Protein backbone atom coordinates (compact mmCIF):
# COMPACT_ATOMS: atom_id res chain seq x y z
CA UNK A 1 0.00 0.00 0.00
CA UNK A 2 1.19 3.51 -0.71
CA UNK A 3 1.26 6.39 1.70
CA UNK A 4 -2.03 7.90 2.81
CA UNK A 5 -2.31 11.68 2.65
CA UNK A 6 -5.09 14.12 3.31
CA UNK A 7 -6.18 16.81 0.90
CA UNK A 8 -7.92 20.15 1.37
CA UNK A 9 -11.33 18.48 1.07
CA UNK A 10 -10.48 16.31 4.06
CA UNK A 11 -10.68 13.07 2.10
CA UNK A 12 -7.89 10.57 2.65
CA UNK A 13 -6.05 9.77 -0.58
CA UNK A 14 -3.76 6.88 -1.19
CA UNK A 15 -1.15 6.78 -3.93
CA UNK A 16 -1.15 3.59 -6.00
CA UNK A 17 0.37 2.41 -9.25
CA UNK A 18 -1.98 1.07 -11.89
CA UNK A 19 -1.53 -0.21 -15.44
CA UNK A 20 -3.98 0.91 -18.11
CA UNK A 21 -4.16 0.95 -21.90
CA UNK A 22 -2.48 3.92 -23.61
CA UNK A 23 -5.86 4.92 -25.04
CA UNK A 24 -7.20 5.34 -21.53
CA UNK A 25 -4.28 7.58 -20.58
CA UNK A 26 -4.74 9.61 -23.75
CA UNK A 27 -8.45 10.03 -23.07
CA UNK A 28 -7.81 11.05 -19.47
CA UNK A 29 -5.18 13.60 -20.51
CA UNK A 30 -7.50 14.98 -23.18
CA UNK A 31 -10.23 15.46 -20.59
CA UNK A 32 -7.78 17.26 -18.30
CA UNK A 33 -6.59 19.45 -21.17
CA UNK A 34 -10.18 20.32 -22.03
CA UNK A 35 -10.85 21.31 -18.43
CA UNK A 36 -13.35 18.52 -17.85
CA UNK A 37 -11.22 16.75 -15.24
CA UNK A 38 -8.94 18.19 -12.57
CA UNK A 39 -6.22 15.60 -13.15
CA UNK A 40 -5.61 12.17 -14.64
CA UNK A 41 -5.99 10.73 -11.14
CA UNK A 42 -9.29 12.52 -10.66
CA UNK A 43 -10.52 11.23 -14.03
CA UNK A 44 -9.65 7.62 -13.17
CA UNK A 45 -11.13 7.97 -9.67
CA UNK A 46 -14.37 9.41 -11.07
CA UNK A 47 -14.67 6.55 -13.56
CA UNK A 48 -14.21 4.07 -10.72
CA UNK A 49 -16.88 5.76 -8.63
CA UNK A 50 -19.27 5.82 -11.59
CA UNK A 51 -18.78 2.08 -12.11
CA UNK A 52 -19.41 1.42 -8.43
CA UNK A 53 -22.63 3.45 -8.60
CA UNK A 54 -23.76 1.53 -11.71
CA UNK A 55 -23.08 -1.79 -10.02
CA UNK A 56 -24.96 -0.75 -6.89
CA UNK A 57 -27.94 0.29 -8.98
CA UNK A 58 -27.78 -3.02 -10.86
CA UNK A 59 -27.75 -4.96 -7.58
CA UNK A 60 -30.78 -2.97 -6.41
CA UNK A 61 -32.55 -3.85 -9.67
CA UNK A 62 -31.76 -7.51 -9.23
CA UNK A 63 -33.25 -7.37 -5.73
CA UNK A 64 -36.43 -5.82 -7.13
CA UNK A 65 -36.80 -7.57 -10.48
CA UNK A 66 -34.43 -10.50 -10.59
CA UNK A 67 -33.29 -13.07 -11.03
CA UNK A 68 -33.28 -12.98 -14.81
CA UNK A 69 -33.07 -16.09 -16.92
CA UNK A 70 -30.17 -16.63 -19.32
CA UNK A 71 -32.63 -16.15 -22.17
CA UNK A 72 -33.72 -12.76 -20.82
CA UNK A 73 -30.15 -11.59 -20.25
CA UNK A 74 -29.02 -12.81 -23.68
CA UNK A 75 -31.90 -10.94 -25.25
CA UNK A 76 -31.03 -7.76 -23.33
CA UNK A 77 -27.36 -7.92 -24.39
CA UNK A 78 -28.34 -8.52 -28.00
CA UNK A 79 -30.80 -5.62 -27.98
CA UNK A 80 -28.25 -3.22 -26.51
CA UNK A 81 -25.76 -4.43 -29.13
CA UNK A 82 -28.28 -3.42 -31.81
CA UNK A 83 -29.21 -6.94 -32.84
CA UNK A 84 -32.95 -6.33 -32.42
CA UNK A 85 -32.79 -3.15 -34.50
CA UNK A 86 -34.68 -2.35 -37.63
CA UNK A 87 -33.65 0.78 -39.42
CA UNK A 88 -35.86 3.58 -40.52
CA UNK A 89 -37.68 3.04 -43.78
CA UNK A 90 -37.12 6.60 -44.96
CA UNK A 91 -35.14 9.61 -43.76
Amino acid at each position, binding site marked *: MGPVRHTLDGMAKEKITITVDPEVVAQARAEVAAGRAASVSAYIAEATV*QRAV*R*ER*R*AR*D*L*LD*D*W*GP*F*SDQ*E*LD*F*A*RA*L*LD*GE*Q*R*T*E*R*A*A*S
Partner: protein
Amino acid sequence: MTDSPRLPTGLSGRVLDTPAIIDLATGRTRYMRAVAYMAVLNGDTLAVPAAALAQAAGMVPAGSDRDHLTRAIAGEVVIVIPMSPRDAVDIGELGAKHRLGVAAAHVAHTATTRRWPILTRNEDAHIWRDLGFTVDVLP
Protein backbone atom coordinates in the same frame (compact mmCIF):
# COMPACT_ATOMS: atom_id res chain seq x y z
CA MET B 1 -41.31 22.67 -17.30
CA THR B 2 -37.54 22.90 -17.33
CA ASP B 3 -34.79 22.85 -19.88
CA SER B 4 -33.83 19.42 -21.16
CA PRO B 5 -31.08 17.65 -19.20
CA ARG B 6 -27.65 17.97 -20.71
CA LEU B 7 -27.45 14.47 -22.11
CA PRO B 8 -24.96 14.11 -24.93
CA THR B 9 -26.27 13.15 -28.34
CA GLY B 10 -24.84 10.25 -30.30
CA LEU B 11 -23.79 8.20 -27.27
CA SER B 12 -25.42 4.90 -26.49
CA GLY B 13 -29.04 5.36 -25.55
CA ARG B 14 -32.62 4.36 -26.27
CA VAL B 15 -35.90 6.21 -26.05
CA LEU B 16 -38.75 4.28 -24.46
CA ASP B 17 -42.24 4.77 -25.87
CA THR B 18 -45.38 4.43 -23.76
CA PRO B 19 -45.80 0.63 -24.17
CA ALA B 20 -42.14 0.07 -23.26
CA ILE B 21 -42.55 2.20 -20.12
CA ILE B 22 -45.63 0.20 -19.18
CA ASP B 23 -43.68 -3.02 -19.73
CA LEU B 24 -40.94 -1.71 -17.42
CA ALA B 25 -43.52 -0.95 -14.72
CA THR B 26 -45.55 -4.15 -15.00
CA GLY B 27 -42.89 -6.67 -16.02
CA ARG B 28 -45.29 -7.88 -18.73
CA THR B 29 -42.53 -9.62 -20.69
CA ARG B 30 -39.64 -9.30 -18.21
CA TYR B 31 -37.43 -8.56 -21.21
CA MET B 32 -37.81 -4.82 -20.73
CA ARG B 33 -36.64 -5.13 -17.14
CA ALA B 34 -33.70 -7.28 -18.25
CA VAL B 35 -32.79 -4.58 -20.78
CA ALA B 36 -32.94 -1.98 -18.01
CA TYR B 37 -30.66 -4.09 -15.83
CA MET B 38 -28.08 -4.54 -18.59
CA ALA B 39 -28.30 -0.86 -19.55
CA VAL B 40 -27.50 0.15 -15.97
CA LEU B 41 -24.52 -2.22 -15.90
CA ASN B 42 -23.24 -0.93 -19.25
CA GLY B 43 -23.88 2.73 -18.54
CA ASP B 44 -26.32 2.98 -21.45
CA THR B 45 -29.05 5.61 -21.15
CA LEU B 46 -32.74 4.75 -21.22
CA ALA B 47 -34.59 7.98 -21.87
CA VAL B 48 -38.23 8.41 -20.91
CA PRO B 49 -39.92 11.48 -22.40
CA ALA B 50 -42.06 13.15 -19.74
CA ALA B 51 -45.26 13.14 -21.82
CA ALA B 52 -44.91 9.40 -22.48
CA LEU B 53 -44.22 8.83 -18.81
CA ALA B 54 -47.39 10.71 -17.90
CA GLN B 55 -49.42 8.63 -20.35
CA ALA B 56 -47.90 5.37 -19.11
CA ALA B 57 -48.40 6.31 -15.44
CA GLY B 58 -52.08 6.83 -16.18
CA MET B 59 -52.33 3.38 -17.74
CA VAL B 60 -50.41 1.47 -15.06
CA PRO B 61 -52.51 0.25 -12.13
CA ALA B 62 -51.88 2.13 -8.89
CA GLY B 63 -49.94 0.12 -6.34
CA SER B 64 -47.07 -2.20 -7.01
CA ASP B 65 -46.70 -1.53 -10.74
CA ARG B 66 -46.66 2.23 -10.29
CA ASP B 67 -44.24 1.86 -7.38
CA HIS B 68 -41.87 0.01 -9.71
CA LEU B 69 -42.09 2.90 -12.14
CA THR B 70 -41.48 5.46 -9.42
CA ARG B 71 -38.45 3.58 -8.14
CA ALA B 72 -37.00 3.23 -11.64
CA ILE B 73 -37.13 7.00 -11.97
CA ALA B 74 -35.83 7.75 -8.47
CA GLY B 75 -33.00 5.24 -8.90
CA GLU B 76 -32.02 6.76 -12.26
CA VAL B 77 -32.61 3.47 -14.05
CA VAL B 78 -34.30 5.68 -16.62
CA ILE B 79 -33.72 9.36 -17.25
CA VAL B 80 -36.82 11.49 -17.64
CA ILE B 81 -36.62 13.99 -20.49
CA PRO B 82 -38.58 17.12 -19.56
CA MET B 83 -40.43 19.30 -22.04
CA SER B 84 -39.14 22.84 -22.22
CA PRO B 85 -41.36 25.60 -23.63
CA ARG B 86 -39.38 25.54 -26.87
CA ASP B 87 -39.62 21.72 -27.01
CA ALA B 88 -43.38 21.99 -26.55
CA VAL B 89 -43.75 24.03 -29.71
CA ASP B 90 -41.52 21.67 -31.71
CA ILE B 91 -43.35 18.62 -30.32
CA GLY B 92 -46.69 20.12 -31.25
CA GLU B 93 -45.49 20.69 -34.81
CA LEU B 94 -44.05 17.16 -35.00
CA GLY B 95 -47.29 15.68 -33.70
CA ALA B 96 -49.32 17.57 -36.28
CA LYS B 97 -46.96 16.52 -39.07
CA HIS B 98 -47.11 12.81 -38.20
CA ARG B 99 -50.63 12.76 -36.66
CA LEU B 100 -49.26 11.75 -33.27
CA GLY B 101 -50.58 12.51 -29.81
CA VAL B 102 -48.44 14.55 -27.43
CA ALA B 103 -46.89 11.50 -25.74
CA ALA B 104 -45.85 9.83 -29.00
CA ALA B 105 -44.69 13.15 -30.43
CA HIS B 106 -42.44 13.68 -27.40
CA VAL B 107 -40.96 10.22 -28.02
CA ALA B 108 -40.40 11.10 -31.68
CA HIS B 109 -38.85 14.45 -30.76
CA THR B 110 -36.46 12.88 -28.23
CA ALA B 111 -35.41 10.17 -30.69
CA THR B 112 -34.83 12.75 -33.41
CA THR B 113 -32.83 15.24 -31.34
CA ARG B 114 -30.64 12.60 -29.68
CA ARG B 115 -30.41 10.32 -32.71
CA TRP B 116 -31.28 7.32 -30.55
CA PRO B 117 -33.47 4.34 -31.49
CA ILE B 118 -36.95 3.99 -30.06
CA LEU B 119 -37.40 0.98 -27.81
CA THR B 120 -40.86 -0.46 -28.31
CA ARG B 121 -42.77 -3.71 -28.32
CA ASN B 122 -43.15 -5.79 -31.44
CA GLU B 123 -46.82 -4.87 -31.98
CA ASP B 124 -45.98 -1.15 -32.23
CA ALA B 125 -42.67 -1.29 -34.09
CA HIS B 126 -44.25 -0.84 -37.52
CA ILE B 127 -45.79 2.48 -36.46
CA TRP B 128 -42.39 3.99 -35.75
CA ARG B 129 -40.73 2.35 -38.74
CA ASP B 130 -43.41 3.66 -41.07
CA LEU B 131 -42.65 7.16 -39.76
CA GLY B 132 -38.97 6.66 -40.57
CA PHE B 133 -37.61 5.95 -37.09
CA THR B 134 -35.07 3.32 -36.09
CA VAL B 135 -36.47 0.89 -33.54
CA ASP B 136 -35.16 -1.71 -31.12
CA VAL B 137 -37.90 -4.27 -30.65
CA LEU B 138 -39.08 -6.07 -27.52
CA PRO B 139 -40.79 -9.45 -27.87
